[in-house]
């Protein structure tokens, strides 16, 4: 996977406004938004397995007039 190589701000520049990185990747949760049960997973002490569920936060920018890259 080359997600780390994606040039995110360039990507955002060219996408419809809703398609921010956070909208696709999930926004990093703030400390007070995270449940105690999620902390071992968020810190990497535990890992989720196939078939488990995870709650993510998605952020979107305001809906504006559709923009095209050309």
């Amino acid at each position, binding site marked *: 996977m080359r997600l780390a190589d994606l040039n995110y701000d360039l990507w955002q520049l060219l996408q419809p406004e809703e*398609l921010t990185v956070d909208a696709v990747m999930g926004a990093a949760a703030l400390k007070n938004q995270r449940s105690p049960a999620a902390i071992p997973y968020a810190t990497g002490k535990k890992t989720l397995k*196939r078939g488990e569920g995870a709650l993510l936060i998605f952020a979107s920018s305001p809906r504006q007039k559709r923009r095209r890259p050309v």
Partner: protein
Amino acid sequence: MMGRIQRLWVAVSERVDDYYIGILNEHPAENYANRDFYLSPGAEVPFLSHHIVDISRPPFGFDIRKVLQTNPKRLWSRDAQVQPSMGDPILHELFQLADQNAIKRLQEGNCRSAFGIGRTTGQTWTDKFITTGVDFPTDDEAFMEAVQPLQEQVRQRKLQASAVCTYRQLQRTSGTAMNAIVIFLENAVGYSVYWIRTYRTTSDGYELDDLTAQFGEPLVFRHS
């Protein structure tokens, strides 16, 4: 204006390096009726551990087994560099042709204002990658003058999709200007795929970066 946030559950389907791949089973919000919006039920969502908010109480009706048994409707490319077409053979062929064409243009002369057009009936690329001007101005008006007839054919469904390759100077949010090859395809339904590859001038010519961004409907030519 502030953006909105929303909490959504995903079912973990696999792990790739540091990333989890989750499958969404909800629609994010009412104004995501826009079919272009990637996040939709059945879409793969990559995420990292620090994105996890909760793992303990999936909502009533969130059947993880059912989500996992359903084939994902929108696949996240596992390797954006070698799989820009995300499985669509016609799109794959187009990207290869467009890439070759763009690189050739870069290497042979002034590329700042060149663009090309390809088209397809949905079966094959009928005219491969047609170039219609080496030094055509890239301002929007001139560009659209060349593109609109093709778009009209797409709208009339005489063509299933059109593709446009152009060179743009992009202003990044950091303020830095970068040159990039931009290819976008538009199908009969309206929206398609963006493909972006940045490059820079060097003493030896041009240095092209890897594919830096690609997004859109994966199977653009499947639409009738």
